[in-house]
């Protein structure tokens, strides 16, 4: 049942602080992982009905009363749901061991679950205002999670993140208000129909600009990105993975493109603006990543750069481009989740994240080094890993759309990406072994397990790229590409 994606995490989160009093570790660990595993299973079970029906609209009545709990699920949402469930399960597995030295596991898991509930809700609701609301649910939880360590860096990063995203979501809500004013409705379907009848190009243009700022800040598009390189590295590693892997994509990319495709309708102007923004992010952040000494900060900048790729792909507007963007979204979620978790392993093992202090770890911690290599190469777009295919599809789509300039920049940026990922590899794992690290041990079981699972996904998706792409990504891309028509069909 689709509704469980929102209710179960919220319920578990609500009882978690109480259970935390009884058992500090075991029950929160088991319960959280069980809940997330259930969600993953649930999302897999939903695949078949979605393929058969195309989309599911559920209206739920509550205690016999007819209430408006409408959930709309098409291949695009399902794709996002699956990504969220998969990555968050790996992250919570990782947390079992990682959170040992933070303490307060119950509280941590509760916040994590609220954030997941927020993201699931954001993905499922077909309503503009509800999108905003669930965005805030996930955001409030993420502010607290970024600051969870209560260190100086964490607090500073969290404060900046909060202040910037509060402004951004205010603008997004303002834009929703204007659309609400014009169409007198908030439901995707009605709004889409209303906007088709109205001819309000300029107003829609301004609304779009507000959306781009509001959701673009969540997605960390340059120049709205400045909070990310502070917030993501400061958070505990699982949260960095969560933020970089999922939150920026769900509350930024998903929300923006859902509204653009399914409500406003994609136009060439929007496509142009978004492609330019995506490209700027891609290039600027890649250069910034090159200069970093902190692994996590480098990864954070790389997230901005890769979100640039995703936005570039989605903004092309052709089915191939959307498919490439979505595929890259998935690959990046998995690989960046992996890399951030891995950086957590490194920090756990050595106590530092500074690339200049690390070196020659590869011999001592083969699992961590190997999974890091897989993740890095996947994001850098090296075959036969998953990231290569998605970048290739994006570049092909750009060429197909006759956007040679963008294709060229995308190619050059991917060389830059390769460059800084090789930098991590060389400094951290290969090269001269720093004497300090001659007695280190491999990361604990669950941390390594989470890394290995995600690395395997990177490899398997790369090798079985065809079935994955055909059965999984293409339908989602088609659902999105049909856009406004698809949404207007929902009610019928």
């Amino acid at each position, binding site marked *: 049942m689709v509704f469980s994606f929102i209710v179960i995490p919220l319920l578990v989160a609500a009882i978690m602080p109480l259970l935390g009093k009884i058992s500090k570790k075991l029950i929160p660990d088991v319960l959280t992982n069980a809940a997330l595993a259930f969600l993953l299973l649930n999302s897999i079970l939903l695949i078949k009905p979605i393929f058969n029906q195309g989309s599911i609209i559920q209206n739920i009545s509550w205690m016999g009363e007819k209430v408006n709990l409408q959930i709309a699920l098409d291949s695009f949402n399902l794709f996002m749901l699956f990504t969220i469930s998969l990555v968050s399960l790996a992250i919570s597995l990782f947390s079992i061991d990682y959170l040992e030295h933070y303490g307060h596991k119950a509280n941590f898991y509760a916040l994590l679950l609220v954030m997941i509930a927020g993201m699931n809700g954001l993905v499922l609701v077909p309503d503009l205002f509800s999108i905003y609301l669930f965005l805030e649910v996930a955001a409030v939880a993420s502010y607290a999670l970024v600051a969870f360590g209560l260190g100086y860096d964490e607090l500073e990063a969290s404060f900046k993140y909060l202040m910037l995203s509060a402004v951004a979501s205010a603008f997004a809500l303002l834009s929703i208000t204007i659309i609400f004013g014009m169409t007198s409705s908030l439901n995707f379907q009605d709004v889409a129909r209303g906007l088709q009848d109205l001819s309000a190009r300029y107003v829609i243009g301004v609304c779009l600009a507000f959306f781009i700022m509001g959701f673009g800040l969540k997605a960390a598009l340059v120049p709205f990105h400045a909070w990310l390189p502070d917030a993501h590295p400061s958070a505990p590693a699982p949260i960095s993975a969560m933020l970089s892997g999922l939150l920026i994509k769900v509350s930024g990319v998903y929300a923006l493109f859902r509204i653009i495709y399914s409500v406003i309708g994609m136009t060439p102007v929007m496509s142009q*603006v978004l492609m330019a923004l995506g490209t700027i992010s891609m290039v600027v952040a890649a*250069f910034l990543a090159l200069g970093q000494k902190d692994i996590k900060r480098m990864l954070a900048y790389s997230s901005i750069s890769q979100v640039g790729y995703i936005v570039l792909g989605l903004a092309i507007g052709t089915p191939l481009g959307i498919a490439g963007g979505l595929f890259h979204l998935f690959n990046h979620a998995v690989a960046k989740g992996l890399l951030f978790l891995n950086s957590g392993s490194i920090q756990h093992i050595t106590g530092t994240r500074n690339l200049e202090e690390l070196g020659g770890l590869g011999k001592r911690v083969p699992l961590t080094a190997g999974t890091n290599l897989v993740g890095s190469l996947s994001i850098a777009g090296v075959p036969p890993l998953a990231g290569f295919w998605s970048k290739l599809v994006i570049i092909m789509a750009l060429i*197909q759309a006759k956007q040679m300039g963008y294709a060229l920049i995308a*190619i050059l940026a991917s060389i830059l990406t390769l460059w800084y990922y090789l930098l991590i590899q060389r400094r951290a794992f*290969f090269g001269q072994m720093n004497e300090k690290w001659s007695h280190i041990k491999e990361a604990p079981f669950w941390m390594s397990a989470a890394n290995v699972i995600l690395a395997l996904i990177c490899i398997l998706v790369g090798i079985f790229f065809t079935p994955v792409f055909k059965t999984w990504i293409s339908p989602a891309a088609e659902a999105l590409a049909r856009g406004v028509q698809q949404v207007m069909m929902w009610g019928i």
Partner: protein
Amino acid sequence: MTAMTLLWPIIFPAAVAILFFLIPTRVRFVREVLAVISSTVLLYLGFALFSLKELSLTTNWLGMGINFDLRLYHFSAFILLALSGFLFLICLYSTVKMKDHPRVREYYGYVFLAAAFSNGAVLSNNFILLIFFWEALLITTYALVTIGLKPTSHRTAVKSLIIGGFCDFSMILGIGLLWASTGTLTMNQVHVEPHGLAVAAFILMMIGAIGKAGAMPFHTWIPDAALDAPVTFMAFMPASFEKLLGIYLLARISLDFFQLKVGSSMAMVLMIIGAATIVLAVFMALIQKDFKKLLSFHAISQVGYMILGIGTAIPIGIAGGIFHMINHAMYKTGLFLSSGSVEHRAGTTELKKLGGLAREMPWTAFGFSVCALAISGVWPLNGFVSKEMVFHGALETGYPIFAIAAWVGAIFTFASFLKAGHSVFFGPRSTEIPKTKESEAPIVLPILILAALCITFGVYNKLPLQNFIQPILSGQAEAQGSLDLTTHALNLFNPVAGVSILCLIIALGIHFYGWNRGGKKAYLASEPIHQLIGLKQLYNLSEARFFDLYEQGVKFLQWLARILFQFIDRPIDFIYEKVITAIGRSLTGLLQKAHNGQYANYLAWTIGGLLVVIWIILQLLR
């Protein structure tokens, strides 16, 4: 045999590679046996597939014209056979040479992985598939260079990756352009008249192909790798596999996809690149002091002949280019392997320290000599035949300048190999090296096999030319033109061959002139005296003069070579190392400075960004 057989050359080595990764490093023997057996199987597979000639496998894959499409025909079968042959020889050689290497486990894994990817690249009949295998080869190259375990290995590996990455990505762009203009991704359906957008596609794809083959200016990592990577890698990748693949693709591009016309601007581009590569790289080879580095510059120089041959767009030239490709792979692999044999026994490859090893290592010396004569184009070895064909082709285009460049290249190729052979195997026995003996059979055998092949392909040149090369060109001949490529293969009595032989004589003259004038006596006599105090300075002086005199005949050329080295080769390195890196760094610094951590600053960007976006959207809507 069913079409599924085509999957074997890809899946089998990949599976073997995985097996290699799984075998622990401590287990010895098994690895070597497995390598030899599985490469033998591959060789058999190569022969079996070669006998089939025509086979294709098409599976619907991604839709949108992206199919899993493998196609075996005479050209790809020929390359496939050659690849598996070289793989076999190198495996045989590695059993001894790489036995005690600390990373031997990964070495074999990557070698077989590279073989799998190369086979895939040769067989693929769909551009996307080709890109996949082509790109994947970068990784194996990268990994194999790092296996050198020298301090600078990693740097060189990154260099190869970046340069290779650039070439590959430009190829992707070229393929994209081609796709945009033809609408198909199936390789044997693409035939384009080269004009308009297709010219750009051609140039971009050509960069991809010649970048893989290692032509100028994408060569700079190869000489570095000669010192930093294992010598088996040099024989494996830059000498044989990458040449075969790069030239194969170049031939496909210029014969199938674009149908190059004689004297067209694109053909000229190719010929200029070819000629420049021949001349510039050979000058650099001349002044090298290290055996392997010298060979690596020749590996670059010889690519020039192939590109020049294909660039002529005349059947005999193209055939010469392709024939030169296979010949080059043979003798250059042989040369690298013999340098490895020397390194194996003598422990060094510096020319200064080596000398007179022929007595102790007769088989290696013999193999080296045959290969060196072949690369220099001495009658009746295979190098002579293919170079003659390229000369003829170059002359027939009506631009004799290219033939002259090729001849100049031939002179100095021979001169530098005389120098190398003379100082390594012949001449006085070097005292710096302890007494040694011939390398083990698995090392010598591949060298001798290659030397024998060099002789066979030279003397019985009808065999390869009619069996391998002619079918490839069958579509290229003019309606009436005969396609007998063997007409002037070994003919000594025509003006072109005359000039070539004259070139060889000049080279011989240059060498012996220099050797006789300065060094002969001093070089022979000086070794025992070298140890005496007082005479040391004198010796040093004479040694300095020796080098001075040796190069006196080519003083001008040496100067020229230096200049070229400084101004042609180095700038490319300079651009790679200094300009790109520096620009990147300063841009990074600037951007990093902008992120000063102040909240107001970040908010200002956000608000500014919003205003700019609004403004742009309103402008665009107008």
